[in-house]
C-alpha cells in the first residue's frame, strides 16, 4: 500500500466509535487539566497512562495525543478569563487575551484562541503526515549548539516583549536564571546555593514558580484591594464566539507565522511549546502592522502565539515517531505507552505498523478539528465560573495551586515554594516588576546552561562553534537583531522627528 491509501485506511480507523470517543475524552481531560491552575498537561498525560494499558496502541495513542493537544491549549482559557495561565506556554496568550477581556471582547478572545490553536495544530499535523522523514533528518543535524541558539532566541524574545523597561525585564530574567541554578547541577554534579538544606538541594520546579507568581499573586491583588466589595460574579450567561472563515482569512499572516515557528521549534527537544509561544509572539510583534497594540490587547499576537503552541505538538511528534526520540515530557510519556504495548517508535515503526502510524496521523488531524468543539464546550464551562463569587474562586484557586505543587513530586516541601512564590508574585505586581521574564528565566535558564556547557565540552571550550555552524549562527544573529531592533527603531524615529521639526522650523 502506498502512503495515500494507508492514509485513507487510517482516516477510516480514526472515525471508529472507540477512537472517536477516545479523542473527545482526551481533549476534554486535556483542556480541563491545562486550564486548572496546578494541574498541568503533563500531569494529565501521566494520569491517563494507566488506563491505556488495557487498550490497543492506536486508541491509547490517540487518547494521549488528544490530552497533549487539549492540555497545551487549555491554559489559555483560564489565562483569558482570570489572568492565570495554566502552563508556561499560555503566558503570551494571557497577556493579549486578558487585555482583550478587559476591553469587553472576552467571548471573541476565547473563540480566537480556540480556532488559532486548532488551526496551528491541524497544519502542523499535516506537515507531520506528509514530510516527517526529511524533517526528522533536519532535527538530527541539530546538536547542542543549535539547541542553545534556539533557547537563546526564546530568552531574548521575552526581554524585548516588555517595552516599558528592558532593564527591569533583564533584572527579572537573570533573577529567574539564578533561581534555576539552585540545586545539584546537571552537568558537573556540584551543589549550588543549597546552603546544606534538603529543600534547596532538589531545586525549584518551574511549574510552582509560574503558578505561584501568576495565580496566588493575582488572587491576593484582587481580594485585598481597600474598601472593595467582593465581586459576586456575572449575572448574565457568558458567551464564546468562534472566528468566522472571513476572520480566519484576515489573520492568515499571524496564523501562518505562528504555525511555522511552532512546528520548527516543536522539533527541538526541551521546552518546545514554551519557547515556540514566546518566539512566535516576539516575531509577530516585530512584523505586525499594529505593534502598538501589543500588551494592550492585540488580535495579531493572540493569533500567532495560540497557533504556535499547538503547532509545536505536530513538530514534537516528528522525532518521536520517526526516530524514537522523545523531545519533551509529554512525548516521553507517549514513548512509554508505545513501549508498554511492545512497539518501538523509531525508524522501523513505518515498516512494522504502518496502519497504526497512519491511523495516528489521521487521528491527530481529526483531533485538531474536534478540538474546536471540545474547546468551545470547555470554554463555556469555565466562563460559567465567572458567575461564582470572587472570594470562593480565590479560595479554590489557591487550594488547587497547593495540590498542583504537591502533585509534581508528591513532596510537601514543594508547598513552601508555592507559598513563597505566591507572596513574591503579589509583591512583584505591587512594585511593577514584570513576572514573565522571571518565569522564562527559571524554565529556559537551566536548558540554556546545559546546552551551552555541552557544546563547550564537545568543542573543547571553543566559543566560535556558535558562529561557525550556519543554523546556530543564523538563529543567534536573528536574536541579536531582535535585541537591538527596538533601539535602532527608536533612534530612527527620533531622527525623523528631529528632521521634521527642523523642516517645520525652517519653513
Amino acid at each position, binding site marked *: 500500500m502506498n502512503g495515500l491509501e494507508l492514509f485513507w485506511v487510517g482516516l477510516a480507523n480514526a472515525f471508529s466509535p472507540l477512537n472517536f470517543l477516545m479523542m473527545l475524552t482526551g481533549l476534554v481531560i486535556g483542556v480541563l487539566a491545562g486550564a486548572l491552575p496546578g494541574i498541568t498537561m503533563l500531569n494529565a498525560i501521566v*494520569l491517563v497512562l494507566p488506563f491505556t494499558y488495557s487498550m490497543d496502541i492506536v486508541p491509547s495513542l490517540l487518547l494521549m495525543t488528544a490530552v497533549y493537544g487539549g492540555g497545551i491549549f487549555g491554559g489559555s482559557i483560564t489565562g483569558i478569563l482570570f489572568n492565570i495561565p495554566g502552563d508556561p506556554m499560555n503566558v503570551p496568550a494571557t497577556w493579549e487575551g486578558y487585555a482583550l477581556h478587559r476591553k469587553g471582547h472576552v467571548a471573541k478572545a476565547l473563540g480566537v484562541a480556540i480556532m488559532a490553536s486548532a488551526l496551528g495544530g491541524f497544519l502542523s499535523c499535516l506537515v507531520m503526515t506528509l514530510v516527517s522523514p526529511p524533517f526528522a533528518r533536519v532535527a538530527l543535524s541539530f546538536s547542542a549548539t543549535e539547541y542553545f541558539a534556539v533557547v537563546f532566541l526564546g530568552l531574548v524574545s521575552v526581554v524585548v516583549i516588555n517595552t516599558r*523597561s*528592558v*532593564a*527591569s525585564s*533583564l*533584572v527579572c*530574567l*537573570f533573577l529567574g*536564571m*539564578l533561581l534555576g*541554578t539552585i540545586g545539584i*547541577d546537571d*552537568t*558537573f554534579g*556540584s551543589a*549550588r*546555593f543549597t546552603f546544606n538544606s534538603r529543600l534547596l538541594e532538589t531545586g525549584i520546579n518551574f511549574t510552582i514558580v509560574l503558578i505561584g507568581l501568576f495565580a*496566588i499573586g493575582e488572587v*491576593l*491583588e484582587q*481580594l*485585598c*484591594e*481597600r*474598601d*472593595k*466589595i*467582593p465581586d459576586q460574579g456575572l449575572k448574565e450567561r457568558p458567551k464564546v464566539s468562534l472566528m468566522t472563515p472571513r476572520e480566519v482569512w484576515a489573520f492568515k499572516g499571524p496564523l501562518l507565522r505562528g504555525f511555522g515557528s511552532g512546528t520548527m521549534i516543536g522539533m527541538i527537544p526541551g521546552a518546545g511549546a514554551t519557547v515556540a509561544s514566546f518566539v512566535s509572539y516576539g516575531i509577530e510583534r516585530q512584523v505586525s502592522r499594529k505593534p502598538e497594540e501589543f500588551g494592550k490587547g492585540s488580535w495579531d499576537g493572540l493569533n500567532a502565539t495560540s497557533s504556535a503552541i499547538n503547532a509545536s505538538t505536530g513538530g514534537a511528534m516528528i522525532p518521536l515517531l520517526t526516530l524514537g526520540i522523545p523531545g519533551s515530557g509529554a512525548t516521553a510519556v507517549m514513548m512509554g505507552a508505545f513501549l508498554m504495548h511492545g512497539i518501538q517508535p523509531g525508524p522501523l515503526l513505518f515498516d512494522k505498523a504502518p496502519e497504526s502510524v497512519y491511523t495516528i496521523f489521521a487521528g491527530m488531524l481529526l483531533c485538531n478539528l474536534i478540538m474546536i468543539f471540545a474547546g468551545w464546550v470547555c470554554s463555556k464551562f469555565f466562563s460559567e465560573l465567572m458567575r461564582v*463569587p*470572587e*472570594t*470562593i474562586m*480565590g*479560595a*479554590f484557586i*489557591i*487550594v488547587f495551586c*497547593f*495540590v498542583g505543587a*504537591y*502533585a509534581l513530586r*508528591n513532596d*510537601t516541601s514543594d*508547598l*513552601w515554594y*508555592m*507559598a513563597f512564590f505566591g*507572596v513574591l508574585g*503579589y509583591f512583584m*505586581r*505591587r512594585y*511593577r516588576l514584570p513576572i514573565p521574564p522571571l518565569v522564562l528565566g527559571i524554565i529556559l*535558564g537551566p536548558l540554556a*546552561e546545559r546546552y*551551552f*556547557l555541552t557544546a*563547550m565540552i564537545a568543542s*573543547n*571550550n571553543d566559543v566560535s562553534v556558535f558562529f561557525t555552524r550556519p543554523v546556530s549562527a543564523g538563529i543567534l544573529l536573528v536574536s541579536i537583531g531582535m535585541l537591538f531592533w527596538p533601539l535602532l527603531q527608536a533612534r530612527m524615529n527620533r531622527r525623523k522627528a528631529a528632521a521634521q521639526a527642523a523642516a517645520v522650523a525652517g519653513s
Partner: protein
Amino acid sequence: MDTSSDRAGARWATLLKGPVAVLLFGAAVYLYADRSIDLPPPGQLGGAFWPKLCAVGMAVAGVLKAWEAIRARGRPPEEGAACKDMDNRKLFLMILLIVLVVPAIAMLGFPLATALFIGIFLRLAGARGRLMLPLVSLGGTVFLLYLFVKIVYLPLPKGEWFFEDLTLTLYRALFIL
C-alpha cells in the same frame, strides 16, 4: 542652598536605590558562587560558570536600570503604573494564612487543613451568608478528595500521628479507600 541640594540628594537616592541594590546583589551572588561551588574538573568550565555569568548579567542589568531611571527622571509616570490602594491588614493576614497552611497540610493532613483554610480564607475575604462558609469549605473539601484521591490516585498528605489515622478513617467513611 543646602536644603535644595539635600532634596536633590534625596531624589537621587529614591531614583537609584533599586538599581544599586540589584548591582550589589549581583556582586554578592558572584562572590558567593565563586567561593561556595566546587572547583571545575581540569579543562572544564565547571558548575560555577553559569551562575557567575548570570550574576554578572544581573549587575549589568542594574547599571542599565540606573541609566533608564536617570533618563526617565522628571517624566510623568506611565499610565497604569500606579498600584492599587491595598488593604494592608487584610493582605498581611492572607499572606500569613497562605504561609501557615503549608505546615498545617503536612501536620493535619490535606482534608482537615483544606477545610480550615477555605473557611478562614472566605471569612477574611469578606464572604457573606450564614450557611455558605461551612457548606463551601466542607463540600469543597469532599469534592477535592473525591477528585484527587479517588479518581487521580494522588497520595495527598495524610498528616502525622493521630491525624494520619483520622485522615484514613475519613477516607474509609467516604468510601475513598
